């Protein structure tokens, strides 16, 4: 039986990797994928605690997180396509229309 703290450490590692990806990369698509990593880290926690507390609620929430992630990906990728069509770039730091 693996103690829950192991899963927590794994999830902490994944969150950190995801945050590094979001903050340092320029490519929007890779930023997106890093966000997916963070969401998955949260899911690992939910499932680990669901097992820990012998309660199915954690799994129900994980299903909701996956739902939200799917919605987020659909919208996000729609925005990427719209952006690419208008600005011909997918680099986050070149999209600075609000700078005036």
């Amino acid at each position: 039986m693996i103690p829950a703290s192991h899963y927590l450490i794994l999830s902490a590692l994944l969150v950190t990797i995801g945050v590094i990806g979001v903050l340092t990369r320029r490519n929007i698509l890779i930023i997106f994928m890093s966000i997916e990593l963070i969401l998955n880290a949260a899911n690992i926690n939910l499932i680990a605690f669901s097992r820990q507390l012998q309660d199915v609620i954690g799994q129900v929430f994980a299903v909701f997180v996956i739902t939200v992630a799917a919605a987020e990906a659909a919208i996000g990728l729609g925005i990427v396509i719209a952006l690419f069509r208008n600005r011909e770039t997918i680099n986050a730091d070149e999209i600075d229309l609000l700078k005036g």
Partner: protein
Amino acid sequence: MEQLIFYSLAGATVLFGMLVVIARNPVHSAIFLIGALMCIAGLYLQMGAEFVGGVQILVYVGGVMVLFLFVIMLVNVRTAERVRQLSPEWKTALLLAGALSVELVYLVLKGPGVFATAAPEAIPALQGNTQNVGAALYTKYLLPFEIASVLLLVAMIGAVALARSRMD
């Protein structure tokens, strides 16, 4: 055996996660992310959450990631590999991420006091996992479930409106 499976899956997950962030080519990133997601699904199975594991593969790997690959190919920027990869503020970003990781490690190490992280005595029954999740979804969590479906509908309409080409 259980330890071996956990450590190899966890190790692979972290490795794939790092490769996602490091890879220069977005397609490679996506492939590494698929690997990470599959390892995470394996971890779910190991924790007895068969249904979530199945949904993870089905929705994430089979749906979301195909969409990612599709969009990457659509905005196929062959030059993406050759340009600068890091955003201008990457040093600050690394510093912040470092601070975050220190914080997280501190939390987990303090863990036993904050959360109950000792191993539970009984292993949850694998049988009927799908039924359990389904029962919870359709009774106690019916309202969130319906809201999630509305969210998906809104997302669908939004994605269609965003991505369609100007026809008018």
